[in-house]
């Protein structure tokens, strides 16, 4: 139950106007920079020109957007599943934890952009190397957050579970895993934005489709409007996936969301609170 709230739309407006105003201000500054000729037009295209291009080349961009989104989601899902399994194994086994942690850390600190070419050599120019880079990027935050979540359970709660005699499986399903979900979701949200980066990095290294490819092509042709358009679309993909996860969190963990305060979708879904 929430405290009684006022008109839903007034709440949305009250919360949304600041970020919206900031966005408008940024666009205005961008526009001014290009109009005044402070920066040459071939270096930074005007917002108007960029948006015209977004509209004109809509179907071209859409095809590539879909490729990148597909690689991102696939990489994210694989990283999510593997990351959670890994975290569970690490929390329940000291041996696995101490064995896997150094390797995990090593895999994390290795620059993905540096190993991406290797995957191209091994797997060719298809979607596989991009997915692998996305997985590598997204895996670590999922593992870390899930481990933190699973370890955050009250010892008293676990002791209580021991006196209830449900066994480790029931304790995990009914107590440990649900308790870890808020942390898990925090990790997933970081992971999904990293998965986008991973997919684009994979495309940079060797590809003939996807937004990374679009940007690289535009770069080669000095086509800065297209470059900007590509950047904007990549950001939108990341933001959209992030919001979807935020929404999923709201739906799955209403008990948590109601206490966590406003995230973007809280604001849209609930208005005032």
């Amino acid at each position, binding site marked *: *139950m929430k405290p009684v709230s006022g008109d839903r739309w007034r709440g949305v407006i009250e919360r949304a106007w600041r970020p919206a105003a900031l966005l408008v201000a940024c666009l205005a500054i961008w526009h001014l920079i290009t109009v005044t000729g402070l920066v040459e037009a071939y270096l930074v295209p005007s917002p108007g020109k960029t948006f015209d291009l977004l509209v004109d080349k809509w179907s071209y961009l859409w095809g590539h957007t879909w490729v990148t989104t597909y690689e991102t989601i696939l990489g994210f899902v694989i990283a999510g599943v593997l990351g959670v399994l890994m975290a569970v194994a690490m929390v329940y086994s000291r041996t696995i934890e101490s064995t896997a942690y150094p390797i995990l850390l090593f895999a994390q600190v290795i620059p993905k952009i540096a190993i991406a070419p290797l995957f191209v050599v091994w797997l060719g120019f298809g979607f596989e190397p991009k997915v692998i880079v996305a997985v590598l990027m997204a895996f670590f935050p999922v593992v870390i957050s899930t481990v933190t979540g699973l370890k955050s359970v*009250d010892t*008293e*709660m676990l*002791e*209580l*579970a*021991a*006196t*209830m*005699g*449900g066994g480790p499986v*029931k*304790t995990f399903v*009914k*107590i440990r895993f*649900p*308790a870890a979900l808020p942390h898990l979701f925090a990790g997933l949200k970081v992971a999904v934005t990293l998965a986008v980066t991973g997919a684009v990095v994979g495309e940079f290294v060797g590809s003939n489709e996807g937004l990374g490819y679009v940007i690289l092509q535009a770069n080669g042709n000095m086509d800065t409007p297209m470059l900007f358009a590509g950047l904007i679309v990549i950001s939108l993909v990341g933001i959209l996936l992030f919001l979807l996860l935020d929404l999923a969190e709201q739906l799955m*963990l209403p*008990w*948590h969301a109601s*206490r966590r305060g406003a995230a973007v979708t809280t604001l849209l879904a609930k208005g005032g609170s």
Partner: protein
Amino acid sequence: MSVTLGTTTSAVAIDDVSVRFQSKRTEVTAIQQVSLDVAPGEFVSIVGPSGCGKSTLLKLVSGLLKPSSGSVTLLGEEVRGPRHDIGFVFQRAALLEWRSARRNILLQAEMRGMNPAEAGKRADELIEMTGLSGFENALPHELSGGMQQRVALCRALLHQPRVLLMDEPFGALDALTREQMNVELHRVWRETGTTVLLVTHSIAESVYLANRVIVLTQRPAVVKEVIDVDLPSERDYSETMARPAFSSVTAHIRDLLGAVTGHD
């Protein structure tokens, strides 16, 4: 203290138990050669200075902790690991924040694989009995501290345990709610006939509720004195407080604790 099988079996028998905690450099003896017998259906309060080993004692009885020496027998069976035939209430309610009050109570049934229909009926009875009606579907953060503690109590009673262990269950409550909870707990105990071990810091609470009060010393805890509470088994709260027997017993316990904490 040997325990014989049969009708005279103690509900809880603690026999010459010591507990030592080993940390990196130091060794702490929390409990030293404590022996204690609790009869079935008896209500025993345990008081003692902070950090003396009261929680440790309850964990021994529940099997969450193994004694360094000595043995604990619960319902005629030696305690070797976590026991399932008890109910446990901690100082903090320890509720699952994503479950409603009623579903928190039913966690007990789910973990044990009890018949859901029967468990549901029993949960409703307990909710009614502890005055939680109307809040069945509230989440823990929507409940007051006293209500949360009632939920924890219901959860501990759901499977009708023969032994109930309570570790400062009302420590976080205000004085008035605490009195109400005392009265309720007293009634629950009389109605269910459960054996209760209650750890508390409140001398009045320990006397009002119990048949016997165990006073422990400063760590390492040994039993300083066992006090029989000579009050009628049905106890009205304010009437009990006004009895001379009540005030003399509480004064005596206060002396004992003062003596315990006053020196060294």
